[in-house]
């Protein structure tokens, strides 16, 4: 009860003036800034070199999609799940196990177009079962239970050699090649990632106004009343976990193709928490938030070392920076950097222009 209440009351308010105009239409369709961002993302390979394209932007989009699945659960459903990265990681493992990899004793050698659907199906089952456990209790307990599930998965991958190959993980995972294209080459891979992330983003945005998404928001605001309106609240919650697992699973497929390997380090407890940080820093009321958070996170992770050394600190203090930044956001903005930005816009535009204020993200 209390979590759902928290999310709706303190987190949702800043968005009040924002959501309404787009009520039934496609998101931000009349918004020039959104078009500009979309255009830049599409012509990115012309602007950025391979390092930026993959290490910054593709990584941002992949992490952002995992965080999007958390945003979907937390922002619309009021369920803060810390196991989203574990689901993505599980899916990544399954792609490696069913597909082709350097660990021939483990991998079954299926072609990617069989291995991926199989992995996604299993990931959705994993996430749905975890969700079914988590919805047995309410509110803040969700965090504890999903964190425990995520941690159990991490320790299990470390201990299990038959499927997960212990702490070395599975290496040299092969990536798809067809129609004469190596889809893991920088530019094709960037477009694969962009298309997947875009699809997930629009799907989440679309569902948020469909009966399922509206009902989910109703469950977040007042589960008891939802039950008194004829909704099976727990079934809705579990279904939300299934949807979120599918999104996280897609990100997991991209992740394993990106690094061509998967090991317990990718599903560690710290990494699970990073996803929460990304979503919260970006803002969990709208689907764009996780991507903004992911960009901030990836930029920090990549450049913090240089930056810290420049201001005379030890370059290894990246996590300290992340932690402090996260604390600052939680303290001062209930809606991540979007919230901060909106407040700033509103103070600039004044009351008169409130209706249009703050919709300038792609």
């Amino acid at each position, binding site marked *: 009860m*209390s*979590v759902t209440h*928290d*999310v709706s009351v*303190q987190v949702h308010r800043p968005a009040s003036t924002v959501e309404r105009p787009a009520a039934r239409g496609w998101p931000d369709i009349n918004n020039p800034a959104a078009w500009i961002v979309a255009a830049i993302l599409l012509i990115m390979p012309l602007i950025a070199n391979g390092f930026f394209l993959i290490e910054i932007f593709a990584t941002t989009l992949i992490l952002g999609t995992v965080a999007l699945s958390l945003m979907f659960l937390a922002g619309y459903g009021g369920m*803060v799940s810390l196991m989203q990265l574990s689901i993505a990681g599980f899916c990544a493992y399954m792609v490696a196990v069913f597909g082709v990899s350097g660990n021939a004793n483990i991998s079954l050698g299926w072609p990617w177009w069989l291995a991926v659907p199989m992995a996604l199906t299993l990931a959705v089952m994993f996430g749905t079962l975890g969700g079914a*456990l988590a919805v*047995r*209790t309410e*509110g*803040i*307990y969700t*965090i*504890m*239970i999903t*964190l*425990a*599930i995520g*941690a*159990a998965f991490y*320790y*299990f991958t470390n*201990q*299990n*050699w*038959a499927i997960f190959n212990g702490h070395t993980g599975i290496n040299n995972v092969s990536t798809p090649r067809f129609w004469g294209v190596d889809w893991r080459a920088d530019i094709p891979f960037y477009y694969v990632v962009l298309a997947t992330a875009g699809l997930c983003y629009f799907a989440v945005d679309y569902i948020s106004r469909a009966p399922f998404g509206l009902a989910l928001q109703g469950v977040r605001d007042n589960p008891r009343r939802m039950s008194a309106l004829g909704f099976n609240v727990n079934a809705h919650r579990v279904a939300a976990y299934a949807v979120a697992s599918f999104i996280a699973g897609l990100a997991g497929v991209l992740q394993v193709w990106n690094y061509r390997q998967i090991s317990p380090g990718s599903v560690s*407890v*710290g990494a699970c*928490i990073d996803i*929460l*940080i990304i979503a*919260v820093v970006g803002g969990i009321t709208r689907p764009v938030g996780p991507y903004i958070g992911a960009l901030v996170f990836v930029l920090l992770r990549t450049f913090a070392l240089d930056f810290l050394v420049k201001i005379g600190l*030890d370059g*290894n*203090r990246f*996590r*300290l920076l*992340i*932690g*402090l930044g*996260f*604390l600052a956001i*939680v*303290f001062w903005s*209930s809606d991540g950097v979007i919230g901060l930005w909106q407040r700033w816009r509103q103070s600039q535009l004044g009351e008169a222009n409130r209706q249009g204020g703050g919709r300038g993200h792609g």
Partner: protein
Amino acid sequence: MTRFIERHPAWALIVIIAVAVALWLIFAVWPPGLEEAVGRKRVFLNAVFNGITLGGLYFLVASGFTLIFGLMRNVNLAHGSLYLFGGYVGYAISASTGSWVLSFIVAFVLTALVGVLLQVLVFRRMEGQDLRQTMVTIGLSIVFADLMLWACGGDFYQIQTPNWLIGPIELPLLTAVKSSGEPVYLRYPLVRLVIFLASVAIGIAMWLALNRTRIGMIIRAGVDDRDILAATGVRIQVVFVLVFALGAGLAGIAGVVGGTFQSLSPGEDIRFLLASLVVVIVGGMGSIPGAALGALIIGLAEQLGSVYIPTYAIVVTFLIMVLVLALRPQGLLARR
């Protein structure tokens, strides 16, 4: 107890049989067939004792966690950091003064102080917003972890066991009977037993304090119904600070214990946070007896699991949590 038996006769029977079997396994001389099937009795007894003593350690960590959660609805995900902090403090004290006992006192006081500061400076400002508090504890755990890594590095530390506790002690438990008919008794490290007895003593003291003192009554009333606290006119903030100090201090003590039993290194904070989570989920949120039962179950499951099914030890612990969530989502000993 009698009510439980009346209401769930089948469960009561299962529990009684399980306890009887466990007692027989511990006290009887194993017949040769059994030894062939599952291994030496000494191995089993060692695992049981390791499990119970590990349970004592888990109880120390989890009881503070559950108390803070029960009263303030604050899921303190920085609890593991307090554990590790207490351990490092204990190490520093025992290394510099050579006094093991003093390291407990200082660790308790310093971690309790950190707890007080957290409650006064941070959590008091966001009372009732449990999600936000939890987020803050996540941020704090990251910051603390990195600060401790900065200060102490990635090395392993082990706190020196004092001389008077070094060495095994012979327990009046038969592990085997030699062919000459001479009985063989279990030898077990004294320090672990002493620490276990101390955690039992702490647990009983907490239980007494909660059930027999005025402040304890207030805290228990607050756990059951937080509105009551405001109505009684108690200075609620003082109670909160006290409970946070106690919970944090217990984590600090546990850190010294853990540093003596095992070792201290980055990552132990997360390990013990998770242990507390699982213990509290199994035992029941906000319940001290629940934390004790949960700690015992998880400690035993972990140790027995690592002896008999080493690849799946973590799965056993996790399955216990899943089972409890599926059958009794509020935890074994929670009131609701």
